[in-house]
């Protein structure tokens, strides 16, 4: 006896709206369908109406967790179009922030994974320690979520010696804590029982379905833009790609924790070899006609922006592909034949960022073209009408 359960668009396991329609037989999932489109803001269309400078902040708001990654991806593309060469110190600070952001994002993910598995203590502890890196970012950039440190031609804020010392100090604490969480995550029997062998994605499937980021790396595909396409400072830095071969959620935990440790290493290298000098150069208001493909390794995987300029102060086209979107086909594959209990874990394991993945359409209602703000009374009326017309199901069916 199979029936359909809706996970989302509103569901406690999902922090953002998306709809997963699960066909289940008892506790086993037999079919999966992902429906997008609950979180559209029309970023790509909007970007065509804003200037190059304003678009930094627009792209930054594509996502709340990896805000810096979209802004950096955009900025490094536009700098190529404008033929700007940001000073070395500016670049180092920019990518220091991007590594700190990776640390914060992965710690956040560890906590979410713990919460989805009902391991709330783990969640509380990881998030407590995530505050350390959040505070560092706040100190560097002046804000906790949207750092807004990028500008065309460099960064907006400099680091002083006191800040550098504080960051190094914070990294020491974080490294110790991360190693401890690695130990907990890999040894607590009830947690391991939930994540080992769950959400299997073979290497072949990971390749065929174009999976990116930690999902691909946990399936043994060493795909990391920082190594494949070493942009900006990554050519000078020494780090390794974290991979795992277990192809399951445990592998994704391992990959993320290993990446955390790599990120600490990168941050220390950047701070140690931070060159002196300016942090930004002056940028023109217009870009010459041209096109550029900018790639960036966000915490969730490869982030790719295609930017086309037409000689004015506004882009002709800005195409954004966020990593989460690339992982959806793989998620469908992972969920198949799983248990209901595994849905939140498998879905969380791609570290979904739904507002990243859905960024394309304007907030316009279909009929009138008016911005759709529905009154509560109206909603109520619609709900009642819907209720009257709906057939009433009297008998539930035994699922087993």
């Amino acid at each position, binding site marked *: 006896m199979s029936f359909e359960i809706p996970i989302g668009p509103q569901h406690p396991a999902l922090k953002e709206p998306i709809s997963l329609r699960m066909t289940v037989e008892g506790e086993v999932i037999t079919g999966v369908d992902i429906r*997008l*489109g609950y979180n*559209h803001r*029309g970023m*790509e*269309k909007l970007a065509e109406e804003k200037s190059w400078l304003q678009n930094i902040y627009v792209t930054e708001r594509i996502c709340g967790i990896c805000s810096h990654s979209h802004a950096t991806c955009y900025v490094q593309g536009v700098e*190529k179009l404008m033929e700007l060469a940001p000073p070395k110190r500016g670049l180092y600070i920019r990518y220091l922030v991007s590594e700190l952001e990776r640390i914060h994002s992965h710690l956040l993910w560890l906590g979410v994974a713990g919460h989805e598995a009902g391991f709330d203590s783990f969640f509380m502890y990881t998030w407590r320690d995530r505050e350390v890196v959040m505070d560092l970012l706040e100190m560097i950039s002046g804000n906790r979520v949207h750092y807004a440190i990028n500008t065309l031609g460099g960064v907006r804020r400099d680091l002083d010696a006191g800040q550098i010392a504080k960051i190094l100090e914070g990294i020491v604490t974080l490294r110790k804590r991360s190693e401890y969480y690695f130990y907990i995550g890999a040894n607590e029997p009830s947690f391991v029982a939930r994540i080992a062998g769950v959400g299997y994605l073979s290497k072949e499937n990971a*390749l*065929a*379905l*174009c*999976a*990116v980021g930690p999902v691909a790396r946990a399936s043994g595909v060493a*795909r990391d833009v920082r190594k*494949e*396409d070493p942009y900006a400072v990554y050519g000078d830095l020494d780090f390794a790609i974290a991979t795992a071969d277990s192809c399951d959620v445990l592998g994704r935990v391992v990959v993320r924790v290993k990446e955390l440790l790599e990120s600490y290493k990168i941050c220390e290298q950047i701070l140690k070899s931070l060159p002196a000098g300016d942090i930004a150069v002056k940028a023109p208001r217009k870009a010459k006609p*041209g096109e*550029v*493909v900018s*790639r960036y390794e966000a915490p969730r995987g*490869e982030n*790719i922006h*295609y930017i*086309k300029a037409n000689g004015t102060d506004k882009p*002709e*086209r800005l*195409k954004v*592909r966020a990593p989460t*979107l*690339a992982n*959806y*086909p*793989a998620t469908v594959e992972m969920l198949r034949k799983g248990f209901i209990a595994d849905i939140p874990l498998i879905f969380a394991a791609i570290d979904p960022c739904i507002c990243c993945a*859905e960024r*394309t*359409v*304007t907030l*316009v209602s*279909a*009929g009138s*073209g*008016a*911005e759709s*703000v529905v009154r509560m009374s109206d909603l109520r009326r619609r709900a009642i009408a819907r209720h009257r017309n709906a057939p009433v199901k009297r008998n539930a069916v035994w699922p087993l």
Partner: protein
Amino acid sequence: MPDIEIVENLKRDLGEKALELSNPDVRRIFVKVALRDLVPAATILRDKYDCAYLATISGLDKGDVFEFIYHFASPVANINLRTECPRSEPRIASICAVIPGAVLYERELQEMFGVTVEGIPDPRRLNLPDDWPDGQFPLRKDWKHVRPEEVIPGGKP
């Protein structure tokens, strides 16, 4: 593998198919192919250049034609396959048979540019709501969004 070598190899392998070949930046290669050569070219890229990974498909409204750029990535380079189709007859072939992960991007192209992707395994809309009117394609340049006047709910008039 240096870029020049890849460009040379591409010239050899694609032969007539490659209408334009450019290498504007390090590890960025742009190839232009005709519409009918799209699927064979994608197959060649996947099999010979380790480009099983399609990053995304960008669509572009250039007035008379739509341009579609398939951003492939291999561990050594980023190969962008470009093709054009006329606005009057917007049809392209699906590459899902070659790269199964392309389905989401092709669905997005369908709804945003109003092209018909022939042979797509799942032709539903991706992002737009179910009651979106037919014939409205937001990313075409002639589709203009008129911003409604801002109404602040609950405030003074």
